[in-house]
């Protein structure tokens, strides 16, 4: 297992999230800002659609040759004086990182934002080993102060309001004047900058994630806006990169293709502020840079997704667009998903990585409106894969009896019309996408339980058919 999951309690988590007035206030920003910014960036680039296809094809090619590209990448890192460590599991990845830090006598370890770091629970492992991990991305720093996990893959603290951050800073930064003014976001940022600057300069090891590992040159790439990742990796004795196997990308040109869709999809920028290519440790004559350069490449269940109907999920570049456009995410935020990866990508990935037993509820967190697939820069068929999971879960008899008959999922929304409202707003759009199906759900083969809630949009698709057939099959078997 990796970091603790509460994904099993998804329904309870979701219900609680919808009653949380502060969370609902914070989520407003997701609904408005991200969507508008992405749209205007996309509108500015006529080649955006063609680039999506190009990016998808590059990843498909890479995944089909993943073993060979990983070998090549490893050889190139070694040539540049770096070290590659493969890790089958989260445990192995943690042990590798802790060993490197111990050998260097590290006391403080700064961290750039890394979803793999979250996935393997690296902070806890470092703390247990007597070291102090310091998150340096502003959002990550805030949630570290609160002892939380990120609620969004690119905006970790998007579930919080300014006044909550102010309260956290007053609680954590006791050495500062208690009467200081923190009423503006700029003041909060300035305070974090000041506090973290000392940590950057004192750190012994810096850990970052990676958006790409380039096979051609043995290079890791991070894409950020704050500059914290660069200070994290440049100042300490050693730089450790945490990445997963599917981050490998063949060439510099291939990275350019994907970069063009990444920032636009994520934050609506043409290009993020800092795109940093790192190849090996400090070289002779370099006045700065890390003395050691390590890359930990995590599998943690991904290699088993290859060759299955979930292989496409490994194209994901963690841009966050799917959750930014998801009516379920808008309604409940990221924490309700219970593990590291929220939103549609999390609903597909979490069961793959931690199993259906833990994450089996998540693929139900969908209205099948299809927006996530429509905006995904890597053209990942997210709703289709959620359906696959639901079918599997059904077949495995893992869900409670009512759910096996498709009722609980719909009842969940039926009891919460406010969750459904954002979904119906995009219903026309969803209908267009699911034009093959038949309009509204006027009748469903589930009897009276359904007729009271029959004004749903039309997400039945193949899933209900599959379930219905599945039910028959089970009858046949019994």
């Amino acid at each position, binding site marked *: 297992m990796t970091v603790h999951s509460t994904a099993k309690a998804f329904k309870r988590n979701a219900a609680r999230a919808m009653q949380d007035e502060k969370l609902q206030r914070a989520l407003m920003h997701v609904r408005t*800002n991200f969507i508008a910014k992405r749209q205007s960036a996309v509108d500015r*680039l*006529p*080649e955006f659609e063609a*680039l999506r296809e*190009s990016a998808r094809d*590059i990843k498909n090619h890479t995944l*089909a*040759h993943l*073993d*060979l*590209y*990983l070998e*090549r990448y490893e050889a190139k890192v070694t040539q540049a004086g770096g070290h*590659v*460590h*493969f*890790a089958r599991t989260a445990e*192995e990845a943690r042990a*590798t990182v802790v060993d490197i830090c111990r050998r260097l006598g590290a006391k403080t370890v700064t961290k750039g934002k890394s979803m793999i770091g979250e996935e393997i629970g690296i902070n806890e492992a470092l703390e247990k080993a007597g070291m102090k991990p310091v998150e340096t991305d*502003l*959002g990550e720093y805030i949630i570290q102060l609160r002892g939380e996990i990120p609620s969004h893959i690119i*905006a970790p*603290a998007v579930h919080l309001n300014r006044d909550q951050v102010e309260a956290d800073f007053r609680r954590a930064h006791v050495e500062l004047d208690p009467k200081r003014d923190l009423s503006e*976001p700029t003041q909060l*940022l300035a305070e974090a*900058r000041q506090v973290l*600057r000392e940590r*950057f*300069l004192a750190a012994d090891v810096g850990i970052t994630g990676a958006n790409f590992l380039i*096979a*051609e040159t043995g290079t890791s790439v991070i894409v950020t*806006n704050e*500059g*914290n990742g*660069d*200070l994290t990796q*440049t100042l300490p004795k050693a730089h450790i990169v945490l990445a997963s196997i599917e981050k490998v990308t*063949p*060439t510099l*040109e291939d990275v*350019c*293709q994907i970069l*063009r869709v990444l920032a636009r999809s994520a*934050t609506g*920028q*043409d*290009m*993020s*502020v*800092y795109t*940093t*290519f790192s190849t090996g440790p400090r070289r002779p004559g370099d*006045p*700065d*840079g890390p003395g050691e350069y390590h890359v930990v490449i995590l599998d943690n269940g991904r*290699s*088993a*997704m290859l*060759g299955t109907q979930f292989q496409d999920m490994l194209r994901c570049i963690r841009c966050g667009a799917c959750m930014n456009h998801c009516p379920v995410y808008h309604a409940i935020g990221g924490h309700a998903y219970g593990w590291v990866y929220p939103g549609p990508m999390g609903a597909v990935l979490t069961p793959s990585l931690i199993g259906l037993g833990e994450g089996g509820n998540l693929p139900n967190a969908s209205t099948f409106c299809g927006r996530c697939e429509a905006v995904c820069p890597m053209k990942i068929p997210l709703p289709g894969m959620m359906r696959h999971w639901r079918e599997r879960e059904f077949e495995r008899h893992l869900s409670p009896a009512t759910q096996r008959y498709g009722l609980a999922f719909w009842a969940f929304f039926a009891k919460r019309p406010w969750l459904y409202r954002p979904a119906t707003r995009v219903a026309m759009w969803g209908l267009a996408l699911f034009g093959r199906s038949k309009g509204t759900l006027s009748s469903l083969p589930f009897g009276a339980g359904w007729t009271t809630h029959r004004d749903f949009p039309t997400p039945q698709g193949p899933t209900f058919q599959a379930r219905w057939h599945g039910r028959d099959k089970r009858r046949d078997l019994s």
Partner: protein
Amino acid sequence: MSFARDDVLRTIRRSLGVNGTEASRRAEVDDRLSRAPDGIIPKRSQVDRAERLALFMAQAETGLATVVLVPDAASVPTEAARYLRDSNLPATLRIGDDPRLAAMPWHATTIEVSKGASDGADLNALSHAFGGVAETGTLAMVSGSDNPTTLNFLPDNHLVVVASGDLSGNLEELLQKLRARYGKEKMPRTLNLITGPSRSADIEQTLILGAHGPRKLHIIVVEG
């Protein structure tokens, strides 16, 4: 952890239904790595020299940098002095060993120039870019003693000189120049692509400049 390595590769191969020795797969990978084909390159980035300069300046400003054009390298110190004065900043600059910067007439200004990587105490730094990308208004900085990487991130105010002849239309053209300099399949230790000053929108999605890196980025483009 070589067990882990072999295990991961073995599982990947098993899932893909391959054994890793197939000549056709190997050939395909070698081919892609050696040819490094371009994909889709946006039309707006395929521009001639004059347009490239205009696009670079416009895009850099969109990225919230400030940009000025000076006629020659000798004009850089005066422009730097003007910028520091107009921004109410002390007349100090931290620079690396770049010979192009060393050859500039700094004595003609009152700027106090100090040399080397930054330890975090410098308010202002000046670097020479390897090149720039017009498509996105991006600067390309390479590591080394000429232009230490710390200068790109620690000082509050970063001034960057770029020669207009070093501007590329798009990222791909820039990478070709990098390959010409460092050799095929090789890279500098660090290549920083920088588009505007540091920023964060982590608090209520409000964009604020000056997160952990420079609060201000001033680009001096040298004509010629």
